[in-house]
């Protein structure tokens, strides 16, 4: 069993007990425990079930590479799934539940998958998606849905908050072990601005546990001195519990810092995302121990050797009383010595090498520990816990020589340098035969903007494992990265660490053993799965990964990738470097979405643009709709009134009397200069240079392909100044479009632009009584003679400086009044007060839409979708035939766009008076090759017309304008159809009498 030792524990404080629950049972640990060490101290080795076969799984590692021991952490609005117990600090009141089992962790129904393993082979999904189809619906999917998935997704809104911060430095050092500390020291001493990040809460990496002397000092003493000096350097910033998760272009690094994970609800943000821009990056990210592939290597109680000594030394937790060590390298002997020192039994060290030797081996031998060379584990015995191992020859097929009872197994298959951050931006790797590992190739680093190396690896991340060599490597990486390649080669050549390849144990294992050797513990991928993929023709490691799901779980194969590709290489009869690695992609460890979102949630998810009248809309019960970053009133429902009824009332009131619209969101761009007219003639499809001062003209803009992009009314303010109104959503885009042409194509033209959208409030005064209201407000002549339709004039209204534009988007007598933004609300309220006697009422965007549709006016984004030309919409009158050139002219001349054989704009009146559904297609005879009904057009705007009291629509119909009076059929969402008669799109006041009075 696993238990707390009576003494020791470098990181725990035995005086501070912390109570927590696991699956509802109260347990206790100490301050300084991780959740994993506390579970082990309570003999809770079984912590989860595997993804596919629901096999019992225990704690395997002691760091972020842990694949098994994931839990649902917290509850309700602080529930987070897939949290690694090995990196979760214990705190008082912590609540954790195990994942992926039903009905309970101890008794799990899904484990039948384990016995049905031969029915869930590699590539199961690919093999069954096509055929048989019925089996998916009735058999596979229901079963898989029940058993699939790791943690539970939280349902409640996250109670925590998160923040983001920016930082800049000359040198960013990732990893606070000996190499990283030394790199930070050497860079810091030179005066560089240094940031040093460590993912764990403690500094020193493996050194304090492994206990080697560093620079002639005890590891702990060296560590204390190094930290003291670093803290004293004003140009060095240290952050522990901060994981660099990704390296991006030009020295950009994201790092997630844990702040209040262990003190939920203390008022601080739970995590902070650092966005760091570094001159260069040192990756002192260490190495991850690899499992060995022997049968039953996933049974709870089998652990990585270094993790086991972490638990003993750091937390005074013994994972087992009798631990068998199995290894292909010297490092695991440290675990044997640590266990012995703690008074625990090590019945045997099984070393796959034929003749292990060296100081650690000798030290174990001197302690009287039995060492068996050339031996392997044939099979681990046990179910929810290791009960023993069967021993065999590594060179053989697995014939059992001896059985040894034990309750834990410590395994070491060598070390894989953590090359993720090196690789994220394209750093290349070399295979090192002595270490059986991929190492960063200093000759092919990821490059910075200036072509220099952006990332420098140091220490174990560069394959350097001996303490004094690590110091040198860190020193050079921090101070003199250019000479690193040379130094690294020398350090590698000098070091005595050798790890022979042992990819399968025993090397000739029988099929029944290979089917129980786990490569990817989290996704349940075994040696036999990768071998099957190879037999089925998967030669590329990227394909094999997707076919078998090797390395695709939340741990992204930190333990499994190298073992998996080695097995694949063997099966293909190729060398490992030939097979290569899969791509390393950020993030290195999962980052919670809240941290990535930071403060950008709820109200401040994105900026909110408010018109000067926004507050009034809010306080008068407006129902808003988003328009770009604006919120515009959709309608102003009165108490008890539905939105549809409100829209109806607003339309009728405006048509009969007087309506008021906040049109301030309209784009307002000033175009000015000696060449402004010439420029606008290029920009608009129609002529703007000829527009007289004091007049307005409706204009269309196309992109170079000839498709409609924006529209609006242009007013000529003076001889060389035009004011271009754009759509509400298009103002910034169109301003950018103007600048693009002025800066990049016609840079010698004398034209200036300014986007004045937010400088003015614009209020539309609409309806037969509009003039009466303005006359009552007083200050300028708004008569038909002084201010005719499509003219504008400047003056004041109700004492507020104003420009009045005689333009109409409703078909009624209408003035759009622009006033300085600061007086927008005053003008709005003046209109309402003075308009009371005329029955004035504000109206929203939906009434605006209904009224413009009744008049057959197009709306960018409704009638257009980026594939529609002005000619398609019957707007030939607004496309100049005289101009030699304008943007989109050549595009429109392409034969498909100029063809008469296109869908063109018409109106529709339903025969039964109903409203055609949004997005409906117009049906044609027959069906296409996919069995779908042929279509001949589609609806683009469809409304109930309160004015006409039936459904009206606009849409694009094949040869539309030549088919007036014909009845066509639209499909409906309920599967039925609705008949409509093709009509003129202008349903209301066809001659325009009402707007021109």
């Amino acid at each position, binding site marked *: 069993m696993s238990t707390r030792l009576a003494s020791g524990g470098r990181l725990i404080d035995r005086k501070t007990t912390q109570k927590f629950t696991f699956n509802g049972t109260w347990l206790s640990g100490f301050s300084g425990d991780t959740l994993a060490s506390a579970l082990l101290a309570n003999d809770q080795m079984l912590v989860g079930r595997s993804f596919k076969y629901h096999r019992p799984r225990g704690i395997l590692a002691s760091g972020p590479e842990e694949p098994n021991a994931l839990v649902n952490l917290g509850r309700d609005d602080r529930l987070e799934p897939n949290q690694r117990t090995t990196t979760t600090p214990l705190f008082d009141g912590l609540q954790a539940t195990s994942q992926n089992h039903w009905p309970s962790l101890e008794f799990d129904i899904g484990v039948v998958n384990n016995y049905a393993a031969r029915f869930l082979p590699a590539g199961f999904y690919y093999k069954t998606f096509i055929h048989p189809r019925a089996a998916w619906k009735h058999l596979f999917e229901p079963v898989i849905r029940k058993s699939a998935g790791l943690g539970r997704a939280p349902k409640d809104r996250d109670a925590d908050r998160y923040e983001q911060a920016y930082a800049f430095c000359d040198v960013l050092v990732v990893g606070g072990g000996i190499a990283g500390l030394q790199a930070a020291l050497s860079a810091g001493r030179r005066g560089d601005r240094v940031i040093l990040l460590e993912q764990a809460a403690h500094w020193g990496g493996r050194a304090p546990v492994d206990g080697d002397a560093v620079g002639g000092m005890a590891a702990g003493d060296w560590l204390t001195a190094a930290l003291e000096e670093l803290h004293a350097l004003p140009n060095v910033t240290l952050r522990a519990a901060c994981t660099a998760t990704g390296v991006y*272009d*030009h020295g950009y690094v994201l790092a997630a810092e844990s702040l209040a994970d262990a003190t939920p609800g203390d008022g601080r943000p739970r995590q902070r995302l650092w966005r760091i821009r570094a001159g260069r990056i040192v990756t002192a990210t260490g190495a991850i121990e690899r499992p060995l592939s022997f049968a039953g290597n996933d049974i709870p109680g089998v652990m990585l050797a270094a993790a086991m000594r972490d638990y003993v030394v750091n937390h005074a937790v013994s994972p087992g009383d009798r631990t068998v060590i199995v290894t292909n390298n010297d490092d695991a002997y440290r675990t044997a010595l640590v266990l012995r020192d703690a008074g625990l039994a090590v019945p045997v060290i099984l070393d796959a090498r034929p003749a292990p030797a060296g100081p650690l081996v000798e030290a174990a031998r001197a302690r009287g520990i039995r060492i068996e060379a050339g031996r392997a584990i044939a099979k681990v015995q046990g179910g929810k816990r290791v009960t023993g191992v069967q021993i065999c020859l590594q060179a053989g097929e697995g014939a059992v020589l001896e059985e040894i009872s034990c309750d834990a197994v410590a395994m070491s298959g060598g070390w894989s340098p953590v090359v993720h951050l090196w690789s994220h931006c394209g750093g290349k790797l070399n295979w090192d035969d002595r270490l059986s590992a991929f190492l960063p190739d200093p000759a092919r680093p990821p490059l910075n*903007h200036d072509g220099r190396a952006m990332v420098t690896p140091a220490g174990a991340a560069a394959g350097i494992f001996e303490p004094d060599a690590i110091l040198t490597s860190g020193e050079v990486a921090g101070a003199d990265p250019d000479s690193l390649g040379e130094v690294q080669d020398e350090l590698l050549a000098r070091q005595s660490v050798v790890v022979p390849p042992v990819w399968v144990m025993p090397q000739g294992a029988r099929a029944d053993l290979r089917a129980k050797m786990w490569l990817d513990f989290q996704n349940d991928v075994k040696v036999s799965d990768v071998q099957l993929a190879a037999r089925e023709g998967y030669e590329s490691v990227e394909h094999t990964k997707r076919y078998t799901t090797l390395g695709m779980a939340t741990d992204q194969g930190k333990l499994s990738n190298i073992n998996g590709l080695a097995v694949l290489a063997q099966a293909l009869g190729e060398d490992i470097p030939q097979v290569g690695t899969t791509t390393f992609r950020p993030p290195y460890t999962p980052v919670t979405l809240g941290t990535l979102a930071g403060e950008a949630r709820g109200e401040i998810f994105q900026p909110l643009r408010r018109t000067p009248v926004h507050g009034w809309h809010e306080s008068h019960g407006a129902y808003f709709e988003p328009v770009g970053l604006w919120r515009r009133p959709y309608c102003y429902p009165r108490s008890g009134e539905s939105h549809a009824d409100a829209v109806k009332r607003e339309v009728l009131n405006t048509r009969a009397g007087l309506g008021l619209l906040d049109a301030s969101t309209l784009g307002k761009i000033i175009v000015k200069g000696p060449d402004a007219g010439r420029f606008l003639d290029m920009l608009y499809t129609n002529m703007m240079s000829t527009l007289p001062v004091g007049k307005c003209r409706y204009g269309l803009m196309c992109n*170079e392909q000839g498709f409609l992009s924006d529209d609006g009314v242009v007013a000529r303010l003076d001889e060389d100044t035009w004011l271009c109104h754009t759509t509400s959503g298009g103002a910034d885009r169109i301003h950018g479009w103007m*600048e693009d042409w002025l800066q*990049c*194509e016609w*840079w010698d033209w004398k034209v200036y632009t300014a986007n004045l959208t937010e400088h003015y409030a614009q209020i539309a005064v609409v309806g037969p009584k509009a003039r009466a209201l303005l006359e009552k407000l007083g200050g300028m002549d708004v008569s038909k003679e002084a201010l005719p339709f499509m003219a504008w004039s400047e003056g004041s209204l109700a004492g507020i400086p104003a420009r009045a534009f005689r333009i109409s988007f409703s078909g009624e007598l209408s003035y759009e009044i622009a006033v300085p933004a600061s007086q927008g609300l005053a003008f709005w309220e003046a209109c309402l007060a003075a308009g009371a006697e005329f029955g004035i009422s504000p109206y929203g965007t939906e009434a605006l839409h209904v009224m413009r549709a009744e008049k057959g006016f197009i709306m960018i984004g409704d009638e257009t979708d980026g594939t529609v030309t002005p000619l398609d919409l019957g707007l030939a009158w607004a496309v100049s035939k005289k101009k*030699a050139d304008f943007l989109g002219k*050549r595009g429109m001349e392409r034969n498909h766009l100029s063809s008469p054989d296109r869908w063109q704009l018409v109106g529709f009146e339903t025969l039964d008076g109903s409203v055609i559904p949004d997005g409906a297609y117009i049906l044609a005879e027959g069906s296409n090759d996919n069995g779908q009904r042929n279509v001949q057009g589609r609806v683009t705007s469809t409304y109930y017309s309160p004015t006409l009291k039936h459904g009206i629509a606009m849409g694009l119909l094949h040869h539309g304008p030549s088919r007036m009076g014909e009845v066509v059929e639209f499909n409906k969402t309920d599967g039925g159809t609705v008949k409509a008669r093709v009509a003129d799109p202008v349903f209301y006041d066809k001659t325009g009498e009402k707007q021109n009075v």
Partner: protein
Amino acid sequence: MLTLTCPCCGVTAEETELAPGYEAHLKRFGPGSTDAEFESYMFARKNPKGVHFERWRHAYGCGKWFLAARCTATLEVFGTYPAQTTEPPAAILDAIRARRPDWKA
């Protein structure tokens, strides 16, 4: 998250401050051009793995468009220069050739 130095205002800007604008030095073909010319201008854009000339706008800064020469494979930036030119200036070409001796325009 690349960084580019705006030649107009001199700010070294983050990618989030910039708006991309596809290939630089396109010659516009308007009315009167052949279908092949128009196609080359409108659709047949270069997409090299290596040296590329691009348009960028310092959209959330000074608002000016500028041009950049960079390597799409290694992320190296050879230089940025004002948009008011029809071909890369000599200094930019020299900077490219200094690092890519075999490169041909």
